[in-house]
């Protein structure tokens, strides 16, 4: 299954500024030292309405996954997953070229720059995980 065209809409522009330069930007509450997903809008710890953006290292581990199959048998299956970032938050993610799927499998973020739309995020295996 092809990946759709991503468009920024003003709410999460720093995330896409990040993907453009191969960096994973997520939300962070400095006073609480807590990290959140890129779509988070506030800190449940201190009640802050505004969260800053900060660079995540890109390391992650696999929480769970599903392989989706379209009606057309010629369609490539899509590997969808929930991953836990090293900083803590979970992300819905698409895996690329990952084999030996298991809970806890180490993953690393990488970025693809399509001709149209924003750069998007994929997770691949690391050298530590079997390929």
């Amino acid at each position: 299954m092809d990946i759709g065209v991503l468009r920024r809409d003003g709410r999460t522009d720093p995330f896409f500024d990040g993907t453009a330069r191969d960096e994973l930007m997520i939300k962070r509450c400095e006073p609480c030292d807590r990290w959140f997903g890129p779509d988070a809008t506030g800190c449940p710890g201190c009640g802050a309405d505004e969260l800053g953006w900060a660079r995540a290292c890109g390391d992650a581990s696999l929480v769970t996954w599903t392989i989706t199959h379209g009606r057309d048998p010629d369609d490539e299956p899509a590997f969808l997953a929930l991953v836990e970032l090293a900083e803590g938050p979970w992300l819905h993610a698409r895996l690329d070229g990952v084999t030996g799927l298991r809970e806890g499998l180490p993953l690393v973020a990488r970025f693809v720059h399509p001709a149209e739309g924003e750069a998007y995020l994929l997770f691949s295996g690391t050298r530590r995980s079997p390929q």
Partner: protein
Amino acid sequence: MQGFAGKAAVAGVGMTTLTRASGRTELQLAAEAARAALLDAGLERPDAILSYHLNDSAPVLYLARELGLKEIGWHNEIYGGGTQSASILADAAMLIDAGLAANVLVYRALNGRSGTRMNALGLKLGEGTEEQFTHPYGMAGPVHQFALAAQRYLHDAGLGEEHLYAVVAQSRLHAGSNPRAVRREPLDLGQYLADRLVASPLRRTDCCQESDGACALVVTRAQDAPGAPRIHAVVRGGGPGASTMDKAPDITALFSRYLAPKLYDAAGMKPGDIDVALLYDAYSWLVPRQLEDFGLVAREDLPAILSTLSGREIAWNGLHPVNPHGGLLSEGYVHGLNNVAEAVRQLRGDGTNQVRDAEVALCTGFGGSYGSAAILTRG
């Protein structure tokens, strides 16, 4: 005990035929089910009407006009899907207990197969979230969300595809004697394994039968319907789990983790009191998950209970009868209300594959880690 406990009874149930393409409007479906339920209850017209929907159904006032009501009392529409199927019993019982109505018609009508399908409804994760973080990557509907949770649940509980097969195969066996069921043919392991994976570990046959149709119930004052099943306890709520986008302590958690203790507490009952379980089985793996959460089967006993040879443990005549009519997996999917209708039949003694001496029925309904559950008792 809750204030309305035992004061309201389900005096009538009605359903249309369930199909893949009704060729009829939601209003026509609602009216047919409503008339059948009123006839079953021996009532000419309802005092009050409640419905739940996802902007895919017939408005209450249209139904009132279709039924020829010159005026109508309390009426309301609740926005929601599977989470409502058990809790709407409390919405009706509260009206009766408060003296606002002597009886309440409850219905759900949808063209869920030929019209708006559930997988087209998106995930409601938050404003802008789906467009930027899930949808372009191919994560679209509830089936993907429930597949992610299923994968992890099977791993955690030590279950595999043969156990999911046992759930579906038993559902089909039950449905074999249910003329209302959309799928009635037996399913062997080879057929199951050969079926197309929609989102691993879920095959097409692990998913409920999206269908066109309507189901209606008539809830009345208990004293007006001495033999009718009583609404004994109802709870609604949830917490983090399978349907939350943010980090959850356990991605496999469903509504039942949060609601089961509250339900037993409200009912003054324990798991051993349940004679028949009408579980919201939109996907096969939700059956073992709920059996475990409601204390009916311990996690370590699930593999044995659901082994291919002894799937009969969840049969109508087994130790833990589940959905003796075939449930949402085989009878059809009227957003869970058809399972509540079967609970009523079982407690009246006119159920499909009637469970012997059924006195207490558990009904559930949910959309992930939020939902509702009810206990009904024989009248």
